[in-house]
């Protein structure tokens, strides 16, 4: 039921450094509901990858099961994709990343996929600081199975079915921080201006980068009383500050307004600029990030933007000291010790 997008290229569509138009980063036509937040996030991913001039085939996109997990079909049609099983995307990405450290791993998941069935794998992939971008399309409900509350639904939030949720919500950013994640951001599907640079920064980060994106489910959880509706999020989002992403090659051209400003150079040479930061938050300090999150939790608003980044992050391959050559490129000559070695081993076993 999915259709490849017809590929007539408008002659004056903007191309990136690789000569690709944005259409080269798109996927099949979405089969999600009209207005679903997930589609906006797909759009932001397309834009970020296009603008960063990443070769599409050097990206691997992986997901679990859910409306959100379907999204990878709807972007990056030239990348290999893997729609695995419910809640287990992190392990599949971990294996994939072990096999080939040179690709960009883009994991997409839902709040059900991550915070419920996937909680264990989510916690552990964060803890291992796997080099990946992990995007949660967070609608506080199980869209694909028709709107049950998920574990990120706020206590008291009312979904379309009409009952107020009786459990406290799991905060995925807080959880990731606890687990040792090294890049943590939150955003809103309706705020592309914030989301696109965050995705770019996450891509440039070496290590586990979580972006928890509130993404309203228009069909089951966009009603009054829901704390994951477009309206509620627009009213309650509080940005930590503005993030700007400057690719390695580019000069900084924009003139920023005055304000507290940071510049971070990423592993790949690009840089991230933060300005107009929230007073109390130093996103390079874990304790500060923790306190800021807690403060906003207590206040009942939604802290968005870059929350935490460990500038000295060492990813899983770094700490494991794996070969710089991707393991999947090694052949028998690199891997097989040959018969003489076996003879020695045999001798030691007599």
């Amino acid at each position, binding site marked *: *039921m*999915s259709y*490849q997008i017809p590929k007539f290229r408008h002659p004056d569509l903007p191309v990136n450094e690789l000569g690709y138009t944005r259409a080269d980063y798109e996927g099949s036509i979405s089969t999600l509901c009209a207005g679903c937040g997930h589609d906006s996030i797909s759009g932001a991913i397309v834009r970020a990858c296009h603008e960063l001039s990443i*070769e599409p*085939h*050097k990206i*691997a996109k*992986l997901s679990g*099961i859910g409306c959100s997990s379907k999204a*990878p*079909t709807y972007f990056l*049609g*030239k*990348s*290999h*994709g*893997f*729609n*695995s*099983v419910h809640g*287990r995307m*992190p*392990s*599949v*990405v*971990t*294996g*994939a990343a*072990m*096999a*080939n450290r*040179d*690709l960009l791993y883009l994991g997409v998941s839902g709040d059900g996929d991550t915070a419920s069935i996937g909680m*264990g*794998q989510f*916690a*552990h992939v964060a803890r*291992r600081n796997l080099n990946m971008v992990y995007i949660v399309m967070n609608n506080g409900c199980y869209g694909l199975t028709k709107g049950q509350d998920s574990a990120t639904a706020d206590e008291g939030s009312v979904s379309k079915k009409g009952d107020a949720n009786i459990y406290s919500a799991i905060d995925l950013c807080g959880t990731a921080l606890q687990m040792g994640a090294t890049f943590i951001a939150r955003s809103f599907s309706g705020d592309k201006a914030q989301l696109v640079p965050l995705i770019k920064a996450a891509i440039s980060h070496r290590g586990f980068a979580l972006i928890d994106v509130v993404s309203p489910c228009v069909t089951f959880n966009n009603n009054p009383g829901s704390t994951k509706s477009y309206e509620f999020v627009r009213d309650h989002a509080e940005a930590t500050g503005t993030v700007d992403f400057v690719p390695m090659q580019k000069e900084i051209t924009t003139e920023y307004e005055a304000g507290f400003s940071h510049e971070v150079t990423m592993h790949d040479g690009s840089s991230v600029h933060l300005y107009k930061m929230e007073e109390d938050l130093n996103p390079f300090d874990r304790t500060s990030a923790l306190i800021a999150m807690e403060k906003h939790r207590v206040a009942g608003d939604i802290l968005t933007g870059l929350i935490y980044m460990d500038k000295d992050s060492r990813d899983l*391959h770094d700490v*494991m*000291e*794996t*070969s*710089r050559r991707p*393991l*999947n490129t*090694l*052949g*028998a000559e690199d*891997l*097989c*010790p*040959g*018969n003489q070695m*076996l*003879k020695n*081993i*045999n001798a030691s*076993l*007599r």
Partner: protein
Amino acid sequence: MKKLESVNDFVIKFANVNGTGSASANNMFAKALFRMGLPVSPKNIFPSNIQGLPTWYEVRVSEAGYLGRRGGIDIALSVNPQSMAQDISEVEPGGYFIYDNTKPLDLRLVRNDVNIIGIPLTRICNEEYKDPRQRQLFKNVIYVGALAALLDMDFKVLTDLVADQFKGKEKLILPNIHALELGHQYARNNVDCPLGIRVQAADAVGDKILLDGNTALGLGAVYGGATVAAWYPITPSTSVVDAFEKYARRVRIDPGTGRKNYAIVQAEDELSAIGMVIGASWNGARAFTATSGPGVSLMSEFLGLAYFAEIPTVLFDVQRAGPSTGMPTRTQQSDILSTAYASHGDTKQVLLFPSTPKECFDFGAQAFDLAERLQTPIILMTDLDLGMNDNMSPPLEWEDGREYDRGKVMTAEQLEAGVEFGRYTDVDGDAICYRTYPATHPSKGAFFTRGTSRDEKAVYTEKGEEYEENMLRLMRKWDTIKEYVPGPEVVSAAQKTDIAVLYFGTSEESSREALDYLAKEGVHMDAMRVRAFPFNHEVKSFIEEHEQVFVIEQNRDAQLRTLLMAEFELGPDKLKSVLCFDGTPISARNIKKQINLHLDGGEIQPLHRSRVANAGGE
């Protein structure tokens, strides 16, 4: 009193307490006999805890080369008061019971039909050593020294072994030899040596080696080119990855950079472990995991994904006694059905059944070729008995220059040249399709892998016909698989016969021995060892050619027989079960008894050790 007499053919059982260092002494004993040219088959019987409970070590010595459990104990050496009552009761009439007589034997335990020999181990230790740790450790070495005298072992072999064992820690050599001598002297001076049962040097092991199956598997994975191992600890599979790591550290560190040409991830659980294997394999690395029953159950959902999305997946199942947590340190072959039919929906999984460490090594390496060629999970079914015990085995071999079969992978060149790519298109008629690794080509060959239905080009579909075509292709692939997996091995009887046995894995050695016993009684039987599921036509013809086939298994539910019945249409009364499922390896005597009973028209329902075999004194 009757004394069992034999040269180079007996069963000895050591009774110890775990965590006291007895394992290495017992090991030294077995290895010494092996170096004297005698086939040995030691089996550890240990509790599911870390310290302080009874543990046993049973060694079969057989110049004739029988390596399975025989049944019955000829010599018991007991240094554990906790288990002494049981230990002495197990000795065959005329056999020998050796114990630490520092404290006198409880009179109620004395048996008149057993030769009781005391060695005052504790006293000797206490007199010789002050340090309690030394007392404990050397006690074990002392009884090995005593056994050397009692059995007439070559003392030089023992001292050489000590020297080998403590290479690098040379100052431990002399004290150990001294302890051996203490025991040796005591026995020579106080006991009538040798016993009726004794050994003499022989030439019956050739170039064989002593190795546990798990180490062999780990080595197989190294040689098979595995670069990613993901696992979660579980007895009795843990040592597979330990061995992989040990050898990978030795041979897979890039000498230039010091970096690793392998990655081992201890996952948070088995679901994650198999997910990592699937992810790595999807991305073109050779990857594996090792686990046991509970882990296999947890992997069941992912195994269905790998089957349906056709992702090479290598899984080593080192079986233990189930169901549930069961008896985690006991052996069984009881995951056959749950692996063959693992996962919901119409799935069937490929199983391999090695029976020796060499075959663990061979199949362990071959599993990667098969997985990539057949693009499906390959589940190698071994068990605690093979995996954790030293088994005598032909030496390991690797044909230099052998290439890995990476299966059907479409390359950038082919794509560039315009070869058409459809991930699930059966272009060759063998129902196996081409895949691409991620990042192969900038604009061609990308596809979406999923556990949902899709068409030949891997595009999502809900069309019944497309789904069905794919499922039928997978059924055809099942036939292709039969041509690739290792075929059965047949051993024909000396005389033409219409009865036969069929066995697999660790039942081989005991079965072979039982058949020899039966042949001596004039009962001749052909034998087939099945080495893989799906079964091929040879298995079918073999069964059809015989009037009655005894299927020997180490589980309660006759699981392999169930598979045979389900796959082939056989007449009634064709397959009889010979079973052992009490957690110990099946013994030759047990097999023989069950077959005899069947042939005498005994009950058809599964027989078991306690009712049948125990009655005969096993």
